[in-house]
């Protein structure tokens, strides 16, 4: 294996500080083979940088490989993000296991791998998002597949019980975890499963994860995409987007709540603000208003409903556009405004209510985001988080809102691995402690 790119690990500490955007994207986790196959990336890399890469190449390869082996953590490799609603788990399944390794491998490890990779559902609520799986990924000199698994946070005890049953702790692995639950459930991990968590900040992990996934996924389905013609429903289509020179960018993470980050470089970001009106609010209100109990149900209802029966539009008040202030008649003047009237409350369906809830929460995130983008003077917005999972409705609304209200100044971007970036960031921390 000619790891001609591996010298990069040597400059790791330098990279941390002065990485220009391009190197970031082809950072040290990038498999060199992969790198070579991307003429575009190569070409875009600063010339000076490329020269220095070549100068140190090959000569140190063998040495590097050995030293990596020493510092490489033992399997299994997990990254975990324990949010308010969902636990996100990424698991690296090595596919380059040698016969020798296979023999050495303890039974527990095999059983975990088999369990995770041979199923797509775990227990009642655990799910593996097979469509997101990243195959033939080289991580820390090992090649394998990256799996994306999620389950509700309230089922964490069952997960811990499983860990206990499978004697997870005997593997002496470090479990890197982020999200609030890493703190909240730290003692549960210790007492219930005899596991020591390595706790990580969720925003650090999020950014690391986003930048990594975007850099490795370039063949096949593009990780990043946008909606073309968002203001025209008939011509609105999803298009791949290359996140070159990603900075500065506004990263909007919509989980149970929302965090908005301004990212200026790999290590330079700030949390601009957040809002408590997020995915949790959508689901929470939908449950109360419609009696549903899952995100999927709520979305399904929303897709069949009509929010204009619930919301009061500008035209409901002014009969048309409010021209004095450039407000179009179709704009929502008051979310749930029609529900002030008893008759209208009695005439709406659950689907209408679900739709209105979705539209309200989504548009609100859109307008807060837009204001932050203006205040921070950033034109590109990347929306992530599990609220957007299978939620094209919201993504199109966001795309529309960014485009319309900014008169085309703002671009809404989305990433396929929506909610998993924190977990990916945690995994990277396991492999390359910063």
């Amino acid at each position: 294996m000619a790891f001609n790119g591996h010298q990069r690990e040597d400059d790791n500490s330098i990279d941390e500080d002065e990485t220009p955007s391009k190197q970031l994207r082809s950072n040290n986790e990038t498999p060199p083979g992969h790198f070579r196959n991307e003429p575009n990336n190569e070409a875009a890399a600063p010339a000076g940088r490329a020269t220095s890469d070549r100068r140190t190449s090959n000569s140190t390869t063998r040495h590097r490989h050995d030293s990596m082996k020493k510092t490489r953590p033992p399997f299994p490799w997990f990254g975990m993000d324990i949010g308010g609603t969902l636990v996100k788990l990424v698991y690296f399944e090595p596919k380059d296991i040698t016969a020798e390794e296979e023999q050495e491998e303890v039974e527990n490890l095999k059983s975990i791998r088999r369990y995770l990779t041979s199923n797509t559902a775990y227990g009642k609520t655990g799910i593996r998002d097979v469509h997101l799986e990243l195959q033939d990924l080289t991580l820390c000199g090992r090649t394998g597949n990256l799996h994306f698994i999620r389950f509700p946070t309230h089922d964490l005890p069952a997960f811990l019980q499983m860990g206990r049953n499978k004697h997870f702790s005997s593997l002496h692995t470090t479990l890197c975890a982020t999200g609030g639950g890493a703190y909240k459930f730290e003692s549960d991990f210790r007492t219930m499963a005899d596991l020591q968590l390595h706790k990580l900040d969720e925003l650090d992990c999020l950014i690391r994860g986003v930048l990594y996934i975007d850099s490795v996924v370039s063949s096949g389905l593009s990780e990043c995409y946008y909606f073309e013609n968002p203001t025209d429903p008939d011509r609105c289509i999803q298009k791949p987007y290359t996140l070159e020179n990603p900075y500065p960018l506004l990263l909007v993470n919509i989980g149970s709540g929302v965090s908005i980050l301004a990212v200026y470089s790999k290590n330079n970001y700030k949390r601009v603000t957040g809002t408590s009106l997020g995915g949790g609010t959508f689901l929470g209100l939908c449950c109360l208003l419609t009696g549903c109990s899952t995100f999927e149900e709520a979305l399904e209802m929303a897709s069949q409903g009509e929010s204009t029966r619930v919301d009061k539009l500008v035209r409901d008040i002014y009969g048309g556009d409010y021209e004095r202030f450039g407000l179009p008649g179709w704009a929502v003047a008051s979310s749930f405004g029609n529900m002030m009237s008893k008759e209208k409350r009695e005439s709406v369906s659950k689907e209408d209510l679900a739709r209105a809830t979705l539209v309200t929460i989504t548009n609100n995130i859109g307008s807060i985001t837009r204001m932050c983008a203006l205040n921070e003077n950033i034109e590109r917005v990347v929306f992530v988080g599990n609220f957007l999972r299978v939620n094209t409705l919201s993504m199109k609304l966001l795309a529309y809102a960014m485009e319309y209200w900014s008169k085309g100044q703002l671009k809404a971007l989305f990433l396929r691995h929506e909610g998993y970036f924190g977990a990916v960031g945690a995994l990277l921390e396991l492999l390359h402690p910063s």
Partner: protein
Amino acid sequence: MAECGRVDSHTSGHTMDKSITLPPDEIFRNLENAKRFAIDIGGSLTKLAYYSTVQHKVAKVRSFDHTTKEAASDKLYEISVQEEVTARLHFIKFENAYIETCLDFIKDHLVNTDTKVIKATGGGAHKFKELIERKLGLKVDKEDEMTCLIKGCNFVLKNIPHEAFVYAKHADSEFRFQTANPDIFPYLLVNIGSGVSIVKVESEDKFERIGGSSIGGGTFWGLGALLTKTKRFDELLQLASKGQHTSVDMLVKDIYGGSYAYLGLTGDLIASSFGKSATADKEFSKEDMAKSLLHMISNDIGQLACLYAKLHNLSRVYFGGFFIRGHPVTMHTITYSINFFTKGEVQALFLRHEGYLGAIGAFLKGAEEDNPNQYSWGENYAGSSGLMSVSPDMNPMQRARSGTFDMLEMDRLERQLVNLPLLQDPSSYIPDTVDLTEDALAREYWLYCFEEALDGVVKRAIASQPEMPEAAARAEKFRQKYRHKLQTLRQQPFAYGSLTVRSLLDTREHCLNEFNFPDPYSKIKQRENDVALRYYQKAVRSLEELSWEERQFALVRGVLAGNVFDWGAKAVSDVLESDPEFGFEEAKRQLEVRPWLVDSYDQWLERQKGPPHKCALFFVDNSGVDIILGVMPFVRELLSRGTEVVLASNSGPALNDVTNSELQILTERIAAMDPVIQAGLREDRLTLVQSGSSSPCLDLSRLDKVLAMVVRERQTDLVIIEGMGRAIHTNYYAMLSCESLKMAVIKNSWLADRLGGKLFSVVFKYEVPPDKQPSPDCAALTP
């Protein structure tokens, strides 16, 4: 009343009390001459505005022609009571359910009007268009809602001191009123109706809707009704005030187990609104859901407001709309949100007359030809209900009395009012020395004091109109009205902005005027002036016999002793009532001996040894001995030194304070016997101006425009303020950009106590601003 009763039976489906418990003619006042109607119909409240002229009695003084011997009576001048017509704006707010009754009442009482059009605004305007046109026979002319709102907002911010306040739920006084900044622009108005509009206002005519949100009052109401099955907005708010949002919301600590210390997010922060209700198998209480909803909406609006304020670099953010209107709960949550998102850098401001903005604006649109913005207007405390008058939470007593009607009346002031150009910092100037809204002990004392004094005021009012037999009945009405005001203020000290001794005095004057007691002291003033005038020459002669230094001291003592003659102060009025011979000399003997309680006389004397002032502005106080034997000799001395003098006296009567028209006569009479004063007048070195005020106190930020002009033209470098009302209750701490002299005798033992003195303690406060301190060079020039 009967008509109102009929409505009751028609609308019996409602749970509300529909009876108008005040006779309608006490609500829709002065309808006979009403014109320029405007109406703002909102979702639940209607606001009616009209302009009317009010006839009321004013006391006029007129000099007798003293050249003809036979006309000369023993009286100095003639007092006559005349009818005067003044302009007043009426604003009435009531629930939409009353519209029909009210329109009927208005139609029946609208006698002689040539009004053809009624300006209308608000979401409900089109709904009631036909009804209004049919009932009143007026053409409904719709005006843009936002334009009206902004026009109204500018109007109240300009004309009503203490219009804006910050709300602090847990502070001693929940309402902290802002000092009126003369420069009101630019500001952000966040109007929370069913949706939210965020408007940037840059000048009288320039404003822009820079943003908004669909999550507003309608969301709270609509979503709240769905979640709790509670129909009424007020009830939803009540539910919310009883709930616990933590059982519905997902907090940071629900996710983290504690705080998210890395970002400095505390554990109690809401991470996800309604995050805990994402389950099918748990019940949540109505109260908790309503509270969670209220937090969600308030926080969201607050956040957007902050983002817009930041983007446009604005620090003054006013909140209005039905979501806010008179609801302490929403004011609290919005305030909390703004504090959180701006880390205290921006304060959420609310407006006392927020509910009237649309109606005021619509009215102003219709009255453009009258140029209402050319005048200054003043809130009439007698005719206005005050803040929270219809809030049952705040004041159950009030609700029982006046039903759900709230009124605002504004008088057009004769003169346009502006800042005294000599204020060091107009934006931080606070006229009043003690804010009784915040100082509970002082409040208790003064409310008691004014209540105690009420009998005496009523007696004096009756005595001032001996030729009118119905005066007693009118005085009794005055008593009831003022006592009711005092009771209201006991419950709601914030009703008319910061409660101060000045506002208590002004409210009393407004109530007296209301019942046609324009000047209860006119005859007493006349008698006192007469007596004092006879003594003038003797007083001046005796002063001239003194050495320069003795004279300076005697002049100051004269002003102070003269100031003891004050019918406004209870201690003195007692003595004066029982012993009218209480003389000037007696007063001097009563004065505290030096050193006085506040005593910078030595510095003043030193200064007098130096070059004369260019021009002195003298705010005078009482008539009689005070002005004639105290102030005039002092003025005479200033004139002799070469200092020009501007005498500022009240435009209208207040207690026994000398009014401008009285002072004109007195000065002429004095000039006739004193060549110094005569020369001063002739050479225009002595000028009489009116202050623009009719208060026993003094607000230096609302003074007659002419006064300000004269002050500027004459390069005034000394301001003298005399008397307890003007120099102690107000302006004690006022910072001027030139030298100032504040002189008063404390004629109230409670106040004396407070200031660490005793009855008849003297305040003699001479101040030189830091940048005007004499340099050593200057000192060398002194003789």
